[in-house]
Structures are given as structure tokens and as C-alpha cells.
């Protein structure tokens, strides 16, 4: 018997977790979809419309909530001294358990909630096209949501690690840790800027921003809310370097969090 990875075992544990999925998380997903439906229905009563941008923002917000809560809802008991025993004693390797966790939280959950909300949006659009200006199934909307989802996956990996690290109030504690980390990085930047000199930093930023064209296309401003500033920011010389650093950081953080989760599943004492 292969003790590291066996495809049949991996499929079996993934199938088991999919079977249990809607019992553990179905209510939350349906509730979120209900909230989105209310969000779409509300303007009907006041006679307004819902713009494409606000719908995309709302879908992304809902997706973010579902993705962040997913680890604690689906795997919250894994490190519990009593409730986690059935999971840890299951004759499946740690790698298979971690990969299945990834598949369920990162891929399956994201797909279910995004697809669900988009289908709901489309159905409402087909029923009352006059109140929802455009369909969201456009290449541009999909691209924007895709980028947002990638960044959400990075954040989710942090919450997956937090779920394994903390025994209770997992989401709250992980958010606090995230805030702590942001403050720490902020302080570090302040320290670096102090060494370099605030004036020099200010001049550098001004110089970089001066490359941005003042003739901005109105359709692009409209989408600033969901961070589609790439077209405009491309003019900045260091933009490409910044993006490369960001993608590397995302990859490192995600990989680090999932590796940490693997280690914690493997070494947790009960």
C-alpha cells in the first residue's frame, strides 16, 4: 500500500467530503444566495436599477465571505481533541487529506458560490432585464472576477492555516493575526521610509504617478471599485516589477499556508 499518495484513496476522501458538504455548509451558501437575491430585488421596490459594477462587487463580497468561512465550517473540527478523531484516524495519507481539503475549500466552494450567484443573477436578468442593465457573463466581467478570485484564494489559504492553528473562534483569531501582520508590515515600511527619507519616497511616488495619463477613459474609472486599475497603472515604469513581486508573494504565502496546514494535520496531537 502506497502510504504517501494513492489516487483511489484520494478520490474516496474527496467523495466523502463532497457527500458531507451541503449538510455542513449548504445553509450558509443558500443564505448568501438569498441575500444576493434580496440585493437584486430591493431596487425593484424603489424603482431603480442595479449596475454591473455593483453586482460584480456584491458577488465578490459574497464569494469572499463564503471562501473565508469555508475552512472553519467544513474542517473546523479537524483539530478538536474529540471531534477530530474520526478524521485523523481515517486510513488516508496526510497528503491526500490536504489535497482533498484544497479541492473542497479552494476549488469546489469557489466554483459553487460564484457559479450559483452568477446563475442567480442571470435568471433575475432574464426575468426583469430592464432593472439589471447588462448580463454578467461577459469576457470583461469574468476577467475581473477571475483576478479577484485569485487574490481571494491567497487570503483563504491564510484562513485554512488559521483553522488548523486555532481551536476556537478560528475566523476571528485569524483576522486578528492578519491585522497584526498588516500593522507589522506597515511599521516596517515606516521604518524603511525613515531610513531612506520621507522626502525621497514622496518624490519617487510623485515621479511614478506623473507617468499616468490625465485623459482617463470614463469606462475605466467606473470599474475602479473592483481594482481594475491595471490599464491606467500600466503607465507607471515600476508597475511590472510590482506586479511580479505581488504574484511571487501570493504564491509564497499560499504555498506556505498550505504547507503549514499539511504539517499541522500530520503532527497534531489529540
Amino acid at each position, binding site marked *: *500500500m502506497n502510504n504517501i499518495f494513492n489516487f483511489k484513496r484520494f478520490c474516496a476522501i474527496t467523495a466523502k467530503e463532497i457527500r458531507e458538504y451541503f*449538510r455542513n455548509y449548504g445553509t450558509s451558501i443558500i443564505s448568501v444566495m438569498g441575500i444576493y437575491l434580496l440585493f437584486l430585488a430591493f431596487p425593484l421596490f424603489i424603482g431603480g436599477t442595479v449596475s454591473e459594477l455593483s453586482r460584480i462587487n456584491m458577488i465578490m463580497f459574497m464569494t469572499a465571505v463564503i471562501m473565508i468561512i469555508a475552512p472553519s465550517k467544513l474542517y473546523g473540527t479537524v483539530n478538536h481533541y474529540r471531534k477530530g478523531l474520526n478524521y485523523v484516524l*481515517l*486510513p488516508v495519507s496526510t497528503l491526500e487529506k490536504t489535497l482533498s481539503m484544497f479541492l473542497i475549500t479552494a476549488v469546489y466552494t469557489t466554483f459553487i458560490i460564484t457559479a450559483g450567484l452568477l446563475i442567480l443573477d442571470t435568471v433575475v436578468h432574464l426575468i426583469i432585464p430592464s432593472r439589471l442593465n447588462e448580463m454578467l457573463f461577459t469576457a470583461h466581467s469574468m476577467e475581473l472576477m477571475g483576478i479577484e478570485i485569485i487574490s481571494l484564494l491567497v487570503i483563504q489559504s491564510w484562513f485554512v492555516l488559521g483553522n488548523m492553528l486555532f481551536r476556537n473562534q478560528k475566523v476571528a483569531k485569524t483576522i486578528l493575526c492578519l491585522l497584526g501582520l498588516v500593522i507589522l508590515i506597515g511599521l516596517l515600511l515606516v521604518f524603511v521610509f525613515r531610513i531612506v527619507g520621507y522626502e525621497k519616497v514622496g518624490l519617487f511616488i510623485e515621479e511614478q504617478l506623473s507617468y499616468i495619463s490625465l485623459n482617463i477613459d470614463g469606462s475605466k474609472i467606473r470599474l475602479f471599485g473592483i481594482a481594475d486599475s491595471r490599464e491606467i497603472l500600466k503607465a507607471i515604469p515600476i508597475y511590472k516589477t510590482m506586479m511580479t513581486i505581488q504574484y511571487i508573494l501570493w504564491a509564497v504565502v499560499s504555498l506556505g499556508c498550505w504547507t503549514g496546514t499539511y504539517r499541522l494535520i500530520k503532527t497534531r496531537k489529540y
Partner: protein
Amino acid sequence: MIQINDLSFNYSRNKVFEHLTLSLEKGNVYGLLGQNGVGKTTLLKIMAGLLKSERTACMVNGFHPYKRQPSFLADIYYLPEEPACPPGTVGELGHNYGTFYPGFKIEQFYSLLERFEVKPEKKFKDLSAGQQKKAHISYALSLNTGILLLDEPSNGLDIPSKALFRSIVSGYINDDRIMVISTHQVRDLENLIDPVIILDNKEVLLHATIQEISEKVCFITKSDNDPEALYTKKTPLGYAMVKSNTQGLDTKVNLEALFNAVLSHKEWFNEQFKEYDHE
């Protein structure tokens, strides 16, 4: 088999075991006895891989338990004293988890549930604590693992269920299996456990088969107290006592009396039983 060799274990500064050595062979139902806090549950958890031991200190079927490899996990199951209840129905426990164990038989699971009068379609949360325990015992037994570790299995069971449990377990054991039962309720498991392991602070006080015990000590009831007895308890029938078996009497082992005798005469038992090497 389970081989524990020079095992030392502690929770921060609290030492639980120090140089513990023990060997458990197939074909036996081991009774793990001891006072509260001597480390019965800890020992079971180490065997199951839930707690970390030194690599060579605990080997189960040739595996280091803490590595929790699928080959190891497929042949061992640990049932805690208070098992957590999964969210679904009793039947779902078998369907969702049991299928990972190569020896699991769903028909056996349902048959045991029927004997315990637990309905598989019932949700765990709707069952009483005793019924939940019965469901978990049925599940544990139907996995048919080579090693089954039960922590206080008779706790929470009603009197008929205890008798049923004894009957089911005695039919379960065969030459390829090891069962370790940790218990305080020695009376519940009398006639079932053999050999007996009594743990005391950090070490094994007694590790002997029922036959070895009855060769060394006898369990008798007399109208008068005997000062030479290792343990005496006044009962309505007279004085129930545990004595050194100098006359070669063949008496039925009373586990509760034995346990008390061992605790009060540790050195005597240590001296008498050291000829039986179970390490």
C-alpha cells in the same frame, strides 16, 4: 503486535510514563486497569498514533504510530470514552467512514446495531448517550481491524447492553486480533479480559494472564478475617480476601479484589510475578 519499549512520556512537567516496557500479542483481550490519572487513555492514544512517542518506544504492527500511515491506520481503531458524534445518521457513519477500512462489513454494522437496538436511520443527536455509545461500539467492531483500542467501553451502557457487549466482544476476538480495553468497571468485563495489565504511577504494576494470577493468588471468602491476606473486604457473606495461593487452590479471579490487592501490595506482586516475562 504492539511493542512498547522503554517508553517515557510526559505532559509538560507531569511525567506519565517512565521506561515503560510492554508487549501485547495477538489473540488476546487485554484489560488495562489503573487508578484515575495513571495514563490508561494516554497509553491507548500513543498506540493509536494520537500522541507522539519516541520512534522506537512504541511500535504497532511494525509501524511507528505517530506517523499515521494509511497502512497502519487501516488496521487499528481507537474508540474514546466519550466519542464525538458525527452530524449525520448512524448509518452514514458506516457509509462515510467505514468504507475506508478494508475489513469493514456494512451488514455486520447493521446487524450489531440491530442487536443493540439502535436504528441506523436515526440521527446521532437524537440518540441518548447510551445509544450513541452502542452505535460507536457497533461501528468499531464492524471495522474488523487487527487492533481495537476501547477506552471505557461499558461506561454509559445499561445492564442488558453490558451483557450484550461482553457476548459480542467474546465472539469478536480471534487469533489475528488484539483488543485492549481500558476500564474502571472491572466487574463489567470480568470473564472477558485476559491478560490483565495494571498501571500505576509511571509503570506497569502487574501484567499477567488470568491463569498466572490464579496460580499465584486465590480469592476466597471466610467467616473470620485473616491477617495474612493481601486484601480483605467485609461482605454480607463474610470476609472476601485475596491470599497468596500456597495451597494450589483453583479459584475464580475477582478483578476488583485483585486490583485493590495489587495497589496495597505492590512489591509483593512485583516479586511474585516477575517470573512471567511479558516484556
